[in-house]
């Protein structure tokens, strides 16, 4: 894959030189950022439709925030905070599984369970971080929350490609089963679906995606991209196909515009923030479209 990245960077550079691509394309870091946007956009946009359909907004937010604690655990375990993958992954997986287990096996409402787990995770994370940032610097918090898309390298991109492959395989096979499990578990079981298993599988998928994306776009942005594009798509789509398609498109546009515009026009806006702003604007537009175009609301 590295060869492909190189090719694209070279192509972009030549495009910038001859003038038909904006000048910022000459920089490798810009092309890398855009590439990662092109991969993360459709990835999070597609999975986001399932997050919205299953009403797991709070749950996925809790997993994103658990990444904060995961990184702190990683630093404590001696991993460099730019590559804290093992502890981050392990912590987030354990956290997600424990939280889901508690949801299924206690009488306390799902909302409160997630709130409590979030509280515990943040309390531990905050304590560890304070301990740990005494050693490094406070900007580690910044990086975990908002990522650092302008410092993406080939390894990060390869990890993203890997995630895309995994998601495609898992997603294509289990899409129907996951949705039906949400609509009526008893019916899903009659159809031969292992409902609990599908539940945990999806949770695992979101966790993997979050961990893989945290270094690049940060926890807050992962959560935002798993929610906002799908929510916007929901306003204007009329069937599943357009729902998924619009969500991917909106997520990708948000990433690309959020990366390019501040760089090209030298705006003092960090790319993470810009991406969320673009996504939010897309959502607002979708609301307006829905209100203004009756065909989007009424039955066919």
């Amino acid at each position, binding site marked *: 894959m590295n060869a492909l990245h190189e090719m694209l960077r070279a192509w972009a550079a030549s495009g910038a030189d001859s003038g038909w691509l904006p000048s910022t394309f000459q920089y490798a870091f810009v092309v890398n950022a855009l590439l990662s946007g092109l991969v993360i956009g459709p990835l999070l946009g597609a999975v986001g439709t399932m997050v919205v359909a299953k009403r797991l907004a709070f749950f996925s937010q809790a997993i994103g925030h658990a990444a904060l604690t995961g990184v702190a655990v990683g630093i404590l375990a001696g991993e460099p905070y730019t590559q804290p993958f093992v502890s981050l992954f392990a912590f987030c997986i354990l956290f997600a599984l424990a939280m889901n287990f508690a949801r299924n096996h206690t009488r306390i409402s799902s909302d409160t369970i997630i709130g409590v787990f979030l509280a515990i995770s943040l309390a531990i994370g905050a304590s560890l971080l304070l301990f740990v940032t005494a050693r490094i610097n406070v900007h580690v918090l910044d990086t975990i929350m908002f990522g650092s898309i302008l410092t993406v390298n080939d390894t990060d991109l390869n990890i993203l490609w890997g995630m895309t492959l995994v998601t495609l395989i898992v997603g294509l096979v289990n899409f129907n089963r996951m949705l039906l499990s949400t609509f009526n578990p*008893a*019916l899903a079981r009659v159809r031969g679906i292992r409902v609990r298993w599908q539940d945990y599988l999806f949770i695992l998928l979101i966790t993997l995606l979050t961990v893989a994306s945290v270094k690049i776009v940060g926890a807050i942005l992962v959560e935002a991209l798993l929610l906002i594009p799908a929510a916007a798509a929901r306003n204007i789509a009329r069937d599943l196909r357009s729902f998924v398609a619009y969500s991917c498109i909106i997520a990708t546009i948000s990433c690309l515009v959020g990366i390019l515009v501040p760089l090209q026009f030298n705006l003092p806006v960090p790319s993470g923030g810009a991406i969320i702003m673009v996504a939010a604007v897309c959502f607002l537009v979708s609301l307006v479209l829905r209100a203004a175009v009756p065909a989007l609301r009424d039955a066919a």
Partner: protein
Amino acid sequence: MAVRTREAESAPKEGAAALGPALELKHVSLDLGNTSILHKVSFRVEPGTIHCLIGPNGAGKTSLLRTILGQMPHEGVVKIRWGARRGIGYVPQRIDVEDLLPLTLRDFIALSCQRRPAFLGMARRLRAEFDECMQALGLAGKVNRMVGQLSGGERQRLLFAQALIPMPGLLILDEPLSSLDRQGAELIQERVRQLADTGMTILWVHHDLKLVREMADAVTCVNRTLRFSGDPAELLSPERVLEAYAP
């Protein structure tokens, strides 16, 4: 609305093996926590019959269905002796689809009945069966409407359609007429009669006793325990029902 005659049903179908299964429950008990939901329920369902399950609310009917579907840990034996056609079609009371979700009727059937991810469209092999089914249930004009925007009755018809793709040997319906208007209810009833005529076994949870008397070949009343089971004509007298529905 034709009333099925009892004599024709009691004569066994000559020749071919029955299409749908026979069901047998022996001493089925179900406890959830400290509450006994079902206690030693035993009855038989004959193949190719319309068998209705009645009882007051909260009496364990839905739990009994789930037990038959193998989804609840229970004591006692549930035996399904399959006929020529295997497979269960389940018509639940409701599905949890939020209003705004862009899920059309076509999407929902695709979701339930095919392997290919529904957002890639309906599988080719399903299309003919789908169109036919929608036509039969009066939903043909609404296939591109979103499930969240359907009326209660339309949703129930959709759930009924889903259970018939592919055609099962055993059809289980959980109060499928509760939201339907008269026309919709008749549609479903007629379809169920046709299906039973082909030999499908139908197990139907219902609360409208008049309908049960008209449609059912056999009726079982469950109120934690078995209250009665057999011929609706003899068993559905007001006194018996009142007694059976008492806690």
